């Protein structure tokens, strides 16, 4: 390898600012969303803060902002900054900065429109935007622009990878860029139905250009994209667990082929699973629900592989640091590094989140948990911990790397991660428990006349867990703000952790583990099998007649 190739890529300031802007906007919105989550937890325990702190008019406006900001804005903006950053770092050249800033502007304009709609209580329809609940047109247009931004990222990263391959014939795409492209490609395919729904139906409907909607057709379009969306959040976290975290703990990537295979499997398997959100929808055939049930179990498999490979990679690190015995290596991991601690604890709760997700996906078992608090109990472990805390963990090295300053306080970061872990364990337990006892989700339970005695204790779990999470979030933001402006300049730039594979597969690595076309083709084929007859029926029965309503 030539010297030039080994040399670390020096990122120009304007490029670093682009990534930093994406990430900071994402986290600023998370901060607002988190505080509203705190108010919801208190409401469930009977403490109504909406009159005391009038930043929103009622529970459901707050809940809409909580959902939209935390899972749509925070995730998407962080992911934009992070994926573009890792692509540039691993291919050792700048992204197309002009296109990068255009992407930023498109997404930010979309975000401002969305912010306007939700803060003025003109879009309290929750993040799922189920029609015929109707929102202001700025809500639909704003979110559609954010999705367009993700397509522009696919364009940027896809072109860079193709260019790199031309310049490096016969070599495998570096892992980080490989994972970034797999993520963006999956989402690029998966987001098409959502774009059709928002731009083709909901936007003209909210402008009174079309009189009504077809409820079931819209739901089906939403969930065609809505479930792959969770893998769009998750894959960047996997990217860090597989290809970066092993280096941070002094280990190596245990199995490069299986890591690549897992990413590629997500391209086809993430897509044809939407009906598992519609198990109790009248009007969708049981047979199709059953097919999606089986396919949802199939998409569990790449995560099963991830569990093994990532743990084994961590073990190589723990043992290299002198860990002995069956579990002794765990204690040798660098638990004083907030980035590591945050991600390790995120994994622990993700194991539980994966299992509770399997319950949700379990066909007729869904009758018990559908639309109960069991579901948010599940996804606060997945997106709310596995994803969110991994992103926080990444930021603990990435922000110092981008600013050239030191992290303000590593100790505070470690405490923050543990508090999030403890708070989430308690809160999620409370939600799942109340859900098993029949408490509905998305409901201002504290004001519900039917509130049952046996929900009292679980609701207190939810509230107390929520308080701990809020404290954790507060510590995180203090640490971040101080790192941005107060922390001293670092003597040496923080390095980007890039894990080496444990075994160099060399020529033995099959070529199909570095190809995308065949996997994208498989995705299209699977979607066709899983959806075509259902969609044909929905379209032949299509009746866009139900008028909108804004009862909020």
């Amino acid at each position, binding site marked *: 390898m030539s010297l030039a190739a080994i040399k670390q890529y020096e990122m120009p300031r304007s490029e670093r600012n682009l990534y930093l802007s994406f990430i900071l906007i994402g986290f600023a919105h998370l901060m607002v969303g988190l505080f509203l989550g705190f108010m919801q937890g208190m409401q469930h325990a009977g403490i109504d803060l909406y009159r005391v702190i009038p930043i929103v008019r009622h529970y*459901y406006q707050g809940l809409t902002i909580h959902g939209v900001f935390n899972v749509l804005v925070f995730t998407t903006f962080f992911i934009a900054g992070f994926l573009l950053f890792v692509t540039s770092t691993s291919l050792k050249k700048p992204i197309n900065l002009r296109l990068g800033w255009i992407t930023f502007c498109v997404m930010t304009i979309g975000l401002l429109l969305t912010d306007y709609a939700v803060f003025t209580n003109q879009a309290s329809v929750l993040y799922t935007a*189920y029609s*015929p*609940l109707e929102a202001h047109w700025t809500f639909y247009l704003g979110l559609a622009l954010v999705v367009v931004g993700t397509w522009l990222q696919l364009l940027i990263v896809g072109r860079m990878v193709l260019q790199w391959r031309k310049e490096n014939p016969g070599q495998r795409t570096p892992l980080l860029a490989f994972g970034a492209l797999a993520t963006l490609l999956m989402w690029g395919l998966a987001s098409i139905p959502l774009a059709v729904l928002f731009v083709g139906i909901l936007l003209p409907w909210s402008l009174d250009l079309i009189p009504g909607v077809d*409820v*079931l057709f819209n739901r089906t379009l939403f969930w065609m994209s809505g479930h792959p969306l969770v893998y769009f959040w998750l894959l960047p976290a996997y990217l860090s667990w597989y290809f970066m975290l092993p280096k941070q703990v002094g280990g190596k990537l*245990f*199995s490069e*082929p*299986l890591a690549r295979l897992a990413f590629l499997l997500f391209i086809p398997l993430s897509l044809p699973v939407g009906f598992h959100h*519609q*198990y*109790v*929808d*009248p*009007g*969708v*055939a*049981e047979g199709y629900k*059953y097919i999606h*049930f089986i396919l949802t*179990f199939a998409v*569990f*498999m790449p995560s*099963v*592989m991830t569990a*093994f490979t990532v743990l*084994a990679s961590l073990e190589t690190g723990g043992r290299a640091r002198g860990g002995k015995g069956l579990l002794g290596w765990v204690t040798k991991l660098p638990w004083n590094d907030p980035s590591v601690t945050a991600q390790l604890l995120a994994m622990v709760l993700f194991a539980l989140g994966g299992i509770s997700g*399997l319950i949700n996906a*379990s*066909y*007729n*078992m*869904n*009758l*018990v948990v*559908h*639309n*109960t608090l069991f579901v948010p109990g599940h996804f606060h472990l997945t997106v709310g911990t596995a994803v969110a805390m991994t992103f926080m963990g990444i930021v603990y090295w990435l922000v110092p790397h981008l600013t050239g300053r030191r992290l303000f306080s590593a100790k505070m970061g470690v405490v923050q991660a543990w508090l999030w872990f403890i708070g989430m364990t308690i809160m999620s337990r409370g939600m799942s428990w109340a859900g098993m006892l*029949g408490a*509905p*989700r*998305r*409901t*201002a*339970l504290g004001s*519900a*006349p039917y509130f*049952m005695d046996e929900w009292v204790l679980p609701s207190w779990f939810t509230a107390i867990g929520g308080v701990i999470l809020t404290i954790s979030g507060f510590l995180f933001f203090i640490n971040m703000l101080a790192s941005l402006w107060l922390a001293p300049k670092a003597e040496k730039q923080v390095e980007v952790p890039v894990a080496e594979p444990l*075994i160099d*597969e060399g020529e033995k*690595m*099959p070529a199909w*583990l570095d190809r995308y076309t065949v996997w994208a083709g498989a995705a299209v084929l699977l979607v066709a099998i899983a959806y075509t007859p259902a969609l044909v*029926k929905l379209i032949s029965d299509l009746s866009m*007649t*139900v008028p909108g*309503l804004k*009862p*909020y």
Partner: protein
Amino acid sequence: MHIDRYERNWIRFAGGLLVVFVAALTVAAVFLGVRLPGIAEQTIPIAQAGGEYDINKGWIRELAPRRYEVNMRARVWSFEPREIRIPAGSTVTFYIHSDDITHGIKIQNTTVSTMIFPGHVAKVTYTFDKPGEYVFVCHEYCGAGHHFMSGRVIVEE
């Protein structure tokens, strides 16, 4: 391509476990009758609906001893009827429709859970063996008063 022996076994084990789960749930659906709402129910007209049994209203009627039919109407933010009295051991078929937007219904401590869409009729059947009060709630967000939307089935001795 090298795959570690332990990893291979782990993948097989997890895959096998999923197959067992699928089999168990399939048995529950096919042989124990724990079914999801399906396509057949969406537009079934209620037998002889009309007059006092207007399809657009909420009502209860006895078809035979311990055999009831309920036409339920959901709208922002109430169910009609909101109280249903039946003797223990009754099998009730619910036909549920919405007048306005999407709602949902969950009857506590039963397997009754379905979405309610304008333009569709959801059909669910359940046998209430144990006497007591079964609260039902709207379980899909339907606006600022969503948490007021509820009712109860009273199963008498």
